[in-house]
């Protein structure tokens, strides 16, 4: 727990340094519009990352999230262009997410196939479905309410998606750290057999998480379609890697059992601010990606180096 706190302490320090650096070298950085843009550009990813945090702490993985986002976006575009009402279209998209989650949950939690394999297969399958639906075209020319949904301020200048992110963050924070369900997630992630021998319903907890993950991914897909105003077969392609990066850099152990919402939030803030700052300073996207890659490697190496040093100090 203490090491975990110090990990978050480190993240907080990096975050403050990033803010200071951005504020010093990019004059537009501190404007309200830029602060909102900074979130908006990755809003769908960071929403999905919140649920991914619980999944990885549970010692599972959901690689299919980006494909579910893509599929949901495609379904949404298709329905809207065929004259369906907004409420019905969104509800159907969430239904697609729910169904996708049930497939993942059934195959991994019920039949015991590793989630890495199941969700990798579903990554391919759902992406295939999205491509079948959209073919080589792009769906666009949505009615005005769709782009309003994606871009217009809901609370002052703050758009719906950012409000949803903040709400989901609060709910999942409490869920993970304060409720019995969250406790079960952590214990199962630490040792699923111990959990089973203590009477916990391991399969049910995992199933709930997979359904939650796909449903939220479907919602993120709708937001993505609405924000961009067009959908293609490869919408949200590869997003799962960015999402998992955010979670791991937040100090969540890929082996499960360890991690906090605070860490993931800080990791998200660092990544978004770094990208935004570099963009404002006209640093190219490739270099931005490189910097974040280095950060990720450092975040994996650093805890190992620290614990190694501790062992050596204990020995000498």
């Amino acid at each position: 727990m203490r090491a975990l706190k110090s990990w978050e302490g480190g993240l907080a320090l990096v975050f403050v340094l990033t803010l200071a650096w951005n504020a010093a070298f990019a004059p537009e950085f501190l404007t309200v519009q830029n602060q909102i843009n900074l979130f908006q550009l990755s809003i769908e990813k960071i929403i999905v990352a919140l649920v991914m945090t619980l999944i990885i702490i549970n010692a599972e993985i959901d690689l299919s999230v980006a494909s579910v986002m893509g599929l949901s976006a495609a379904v949404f575009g298709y329905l809207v262009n065929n004259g369906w009402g907004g409420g019905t279209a969104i509800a159907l998209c969430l239904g697609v997410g729910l169904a996708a989650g049930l497939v993942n949950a059934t195959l991994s939690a019920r039949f015991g196939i590793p989630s890495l394999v199941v969700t990798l297969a579903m990554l391919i399958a759902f992406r295939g479905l999205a491509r079948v639906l959209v073919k080589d075209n792009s769906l666009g020319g949505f009615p005005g309410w769709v782009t309003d949904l994606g871009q217009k301020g809901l609370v002052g200048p703050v758009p719906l998606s950012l409000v949803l992110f903040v709400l989901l963050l609060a709910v999942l924070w409490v869920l993970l750290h304060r409720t019995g369900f969250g406790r079960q997630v952590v214990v199962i992630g630490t040792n699923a057999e111990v959990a089973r021998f203590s009477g916990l319903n391991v399969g049910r907890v995992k199933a709930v998480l997979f359904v939650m993950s796909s449903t939220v991914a479907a919602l993120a897909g709708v937001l993505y379609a609405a924000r961009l105003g067009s959908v293609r077969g490869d919408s949200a392609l590869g997003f799962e890697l960015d999402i998992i990066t955010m979670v791991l850099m937040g100090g969540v152990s890929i082996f499960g059992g360890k991690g906090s919402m605070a860490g993931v939030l800080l990791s998200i803030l660092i990544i978004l601010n770094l990208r935004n700052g570099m963009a404002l300073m006209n640093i190219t996207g490739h270099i931005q990606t490189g910097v974040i890659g280095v950060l990720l490697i450092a975040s994996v190496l650093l805890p190992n180096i620290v614990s190694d040093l501790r062992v050596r100090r204990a020995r000498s």
Partner: protein
Amino acid sequence: MTQPAVLELRSVSKSFAATQALRDMSLQVLPGEVHAIVGENGAGKSTLIKIMTGVYQPDGGEIICDGQPVTLRSTQEAQAAGIAAIYQEPMVFPDLNVAENIFISNRTKGAFMRWSELYREAVALIAQLGVTLDVRRAASGLTLAEQQTVEIARALSLSVKVLIMDEPTASLSAHEVARLLAIARALKDRGVAVIYISHRLDEIFRIADRVTVIRDGQHISTRPIAEVTEDGLVHDMVGRALESFAVKTAANPHGEVALSVKGLGRAGVFHGISFDLAKGEVLCLAGLVGARRTDVALALFGIAPATEGQISLDGQHVAIRTPRQAMDLGLAYVSEDRRKLGLAMALPVFVNISLASLRKLLGTFGLIDRKAEAAMAERYRQQLAIRAPDSATEVGKLSGGNQQKVMLAKWLETRPRILIFDEPTRGIDVGAKAEVHGIIRALAAEGVAVLVISSDLPEVLALADRVLVMREGRQAGILPIEEATQERVIGLAAGQSSGKGERTAA
């Protein structure tokens, strides 16, 4: 005993940060003796072993090998000086065969191997130990005991002069223990000094020539085995007299039947288990390793449900399919494997204690009542004398005995009416063992029906009101405690003529 020591420690001390693990420790090990070292967990045995095998460097004092002061900077240097160790969990490479495993660390053979020679030497080494083992067999199929044999042969191949055996019998069955002790004697006859570390005092009396007691990192006594008694040894280890291993309260044979099992079985695993367990009674399941006793417990607890027979609780037939269901019916199962099945080692004490009764702590929206949870943990920490700085400490950082108490607390909090203990004192020291026995008897006195699975026969005889002996997945007999002697129980367990007094459950 006038011969020179093969290994001697003079005033060795070692400390880690604030804790003094060893102070002024002196020890002489003579060639061809079995030298037992006993002490409670935390007495400094592990540190002592690690200093002798070059894992740790002492802060002060001298290590003398064959009359020469030596510095052992690594296990390789210790091996070169003729000191090697085998542990409870042997280290073998599963994909290599026995002979390859024996010579794995032998670097004197050059770049190319002559396989015929290697096998011949392996056969010779195994033969020296007085056992039969096919040297071409893959290590993956070996039993724990056979893996230990391989490790010992490996040590012999390095012309070991001092072999340290650290809790070698903790997971062995009775006849495997006998074979290991025979190997230790064979080593001794070849002039090898064996340092034997075990919590099982009966083994020490069977094998040791001399016994050294350490406590709180200090040398307490070294005496020839003929001059010590079990009580004296225990007294030296804990520094005070212990009440007899378990204070047996009057059994309650007329209590109502809490659990009744008839013809219980699981296809291909075990069959035909029948017994009645009364409130306040302690029934022990005895048998050799592999007798499938744990499988009976797993069936009762719904982990691997029974496929045949009947279970009745308080006269009601029940079918137990999941642990949750078993717990709701008032059953609890304290697993034998703390590390894999019992405790989430990386999580704090309080999380582990509340784990099985989390529901009681949930309020609106499923929020955990954290004050109540902390109070629960604190209550058990005091009640069971769990030695942990506070209940936020990781369970993995506690000693084995204290981990066992945390696991116990977890199940006590579920207020079980039927409590199943699987090897409740494996790998914990005599002091903690006596405490656990006391808790088990106290629970029985309160009317809890207790089922204990134990491979430790003195423990079975000290705790049980009745003993159910299993052999190869079947019930070999039930003995009331008055009729249960070591000989009868072992006889039934090993399948010798079962004797005329054998009974089965009513």
